[in-house]
């Protein structure tokens, strides 16, 4: 299997993630979509690293995973706080910025 197959996989995962982010009404679902998009990036990095015989991509992936974990933790904490304040986590109810 060549590089292209990995890139197509990564793009597909990214699009699924993006679709989730845009369409999910639940905030936790949106967070999951973001995780998917980040993992698509990870696939990209690892694939390029492997085919270019360079370890830089691997290192970057490690960093990304760390950051993803912390982001998930902070995101969930925010959702809990949000629920306390607004008694809802539905994204289409959070429209205080409506013009």
């Amino acid at each position, binding site marked *: 299997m060549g590089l292209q197959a990995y890139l197509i996989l990564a793009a597909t995962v990214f699009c699924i993630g993006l679709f989730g982010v845009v369409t999910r009404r639940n905030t936790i679902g949106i967070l999951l979509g973001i995780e998917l998009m980040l993992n698509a990036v990870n696939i990209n990095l690892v694939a390029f690293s492997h085919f270019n015989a360079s370890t830089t991509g691997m290192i970057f992936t490690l960093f990304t995973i760390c950051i993803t974990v912390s982001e998930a933790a902070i995101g969930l904490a925010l959702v809990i706080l949000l629920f306390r304040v607004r008694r809802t986590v539905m994204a289409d109810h959070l429209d205080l*910025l*409506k*013009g």
Partner: protein
Amino acid sequence: MMADPGALALIGLLLPAVSFLILAVIAPFRRSGRPAAYTSILFAAGSLAAAIGAWRGHAEGQVTRLAWEWLPSNGHSIATIGVLADRDSTLMLILVALVALLVQLYSIEYLHGEAPAALGRYYTYHSLFAFSMMGVVLAPNLLQLFICWELVGLCSFLLIGFWYQKPEAARAAVKAFWTTKAGDIGLLIGIVLLWRVTGTFDLGELRTMVASGAVPVEGLSLITFCIYLGAVGKSAQFPLHTWLPDAMEGPTPVSALIHAATMVTAGVYLLHRTVFLFPPDVLMVVAWIGAFTALLAAVLACVQDDIKRVLAYSTVSQLGYMMAAIGAGFSAAGFFHLLTHGLFKALLFLGAGAVIHAVHSNDLSHMGGLAKKMPQTALVFGIGTLSLAGIPLFGGFLSKEEILSATLAGHQTGPFVLLMVVAFLTAFYMFRVVFLAFFASPAAAGHYVNAGPGTVVSGFSRTHDGPPKGGHYTAPHDPPAVMILPLWVLAALSLAVGVYSTAAGRVLQFGPGAEGAGEHVAPPWLTPAAVGVAIAGIALAWLVYQRRTIDAGKLAAVFGPIRYAALHKFWIDDIYEGILAFALLALSRIVGWLDRYLVDGVLNVVSAWTVSTGDLLRTVQTGRAQDYVYGVAVGLLVLLLWMRWALT
């Protein structure tokens, strides 16, 4: 002390300015009242001394020109600023300084009831007026003259409205300001047009240009007519004369200084200074309007019952006289009359002020028999009246006759006839005042005044807190020394000028060269005719108001329609009011319509568009983060596609 005469003229000009600055800047000092008054008087006295010194240095016809660069442009200056001292301007300077000093002295007592702050304000204005009037007199170019001219108008406005709490005074001040402004616009246009043609404001340069024929003749009529318009406004010529009688709402000393002796004669002085520019057709207009104004005002003066208004109309009438002389081509005769008139008319006004001070009323019906109670005032007032009537040995005799013979020599027969009628009327109305105020018994005076319809009673001297209390005849008496002294000085000077000029005959030379009086020979019948007419006027007044041989009511009936028209001031004020009201209403209707429908309409449409567009656009801002993410993603996609297809 024989300093440079030109510098003396400059000092004379600047002293009142210093006084004005002191009083204007140091407010506590101004509000102290009397000290401020003494300061102003002191500076006025210094100014008079300097003016006399300046005149002595120029009496033989020398000319001093001090000028500094002003408004520099491209290496040369558009206008200079400075002092042009010659015989005429220094003589006028003396007149201004003298009358200003005497009036300021007189005002201390006349306004003794004013609050200190008001008194200080009064003297501040007076100092400013003296400075600006001298500025007009000494101006070497038309631009500087115009600036001082406007300053003089401002002082006139401020001093007419000195008792601004009184609505009539405030109205009169505004009326005077606007009416003279109407003429001033003409003057400004004239000066600018003249500058376009000749490229200079300087009077001396203009004179040499005219002499060498460098000034184009076409268009000069229009330019000089515009300049004349300024003089019409300031010197109260028909049809802009209506402000001067109303200006009598100001304090009487102000009327004496500004509205008799100096400011109103500025128009005559302006024409005297620029007469070399005037083509014959414009001079013809000047002569006719002058003579007509003289007649109109004299008729109006005959029916007034307010002593100050009689004098005001008399001033208008005499200004018409001066204008007629200038129009006839003998501006020196007009200038001579300006000087003598300044003396005796200031005297008459200050005399009237003394009477008002004593009787607490302006109305002739409240006076009568005052000669016994105020002998000194009666005497000096009589001297002034005889001067005005043109009786030999008195101030106005020769100057008036110069004017009459000037109109004859200028072949202005029409104005000459009008002026002879005016001479008769002048003697009549002035002696009417003298007989009613000083000789007739009070009751009789009241009877005559109230005989006619539409008796005009305008105001009382506010100095005395209210109308005459009960018996206003309690104790009229001669005013104190500080008031009577200026009267005596003016009377003595009027007499001196009269005696000297009568004795010297028609040899007085005024004005440089060509315009000098005395080169025309009056016909031998002129002097007897002029004096005869004046005496006839006096005799008629005596018969009607003193002997009562002729009933005043019958006399009024003979001149019924004219009297009726004169009592309504020939409806000139009403016409103005009508025109102004109509024009203003029409204009405001049009402007209102334009504003409501055109200006507002455009604005409303634009704002409606803005609001609807905004409403449309705000729907994009849903406030939901997902929509924004969607927007970012689509935007990125479009950007990538564009980079793919457009850039490669």
